[in-house]
């Protein structure tokens, strides 16, 4: 199953309890569609760089999950319907590159064994 990531902007005037409710709702949709390892990352209130539905600010919530493509489709369908969601954006999640090994304890990068023969043929 691919890893996905969805970033959505919720209406800024929602009370905290309602935000919690909405993120639980999104998780429930995903879990209902056989997705695993749902991780919620709340960015909180941020200024929008342009007006979205006449709002200057928005509450950002990021979801990270491993799910079948159908689950993503189901989540997006629900986000589209929900009027408290100003905007959403989904991508295939790629983990950020690991920081370069600066510690001396890190193992030296081993030179790849002579596996060229297969590539050359």
């Amino acid at each position, binding site marked *: 199953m691919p890893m996905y990531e969805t970033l959505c902007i919720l209406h800024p005037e929602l009370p905290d309890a309602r935000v919690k409710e909405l993120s639980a709702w999104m998780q429930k949709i995903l879990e209902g569609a056989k997705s695993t390892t749902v991780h919620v990352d709340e960015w909180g209130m941020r200024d*929008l760089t*342009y007006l979205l539905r006449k709002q200057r600010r*928005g509450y950002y919530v990021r979801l990270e999950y491993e799910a079948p493509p159908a689950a993503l489709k189901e989540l997006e369908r629900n986000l589209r319907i929900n009027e408290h969601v100003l905007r959403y954006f989904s991508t295939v999640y790629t983990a950020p*590159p690991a920081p370069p090994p600066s510690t001396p304890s890190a193992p030296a990068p081993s030179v790849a064994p002579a596996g060229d023969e297969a590539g050359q043929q």
Partner: protein
Amino acid sequence: MPRPTERGPRGPQKRNAMNDDKFPARRRLRRKVCRFCADKGAGINYKDSRMLEDFVSERGKIIPSRITGTCAWHQRKLTRSIKQARAIALLPYASTRL
């Protein structure tokens, strides 16, 4: 002054005292280095709006790679990320303050 019939060896015209005005002095001496090639750990991601802002003009336009020195491969990644960041309101499509 050489006679018109006397031609020198063919080849690119070189700068000399006679045609000085045709060849402007070289402005850029040091070659610009792509920031992402130099720092392998720095990924390009649409969520990193702080980093992307460096590659966007005050008006919100993407700065060409010939100005920033970004290599073609990374410029393509950057362009994509900037457009994604715009879609989710992390970067402006156009600045309204101007």
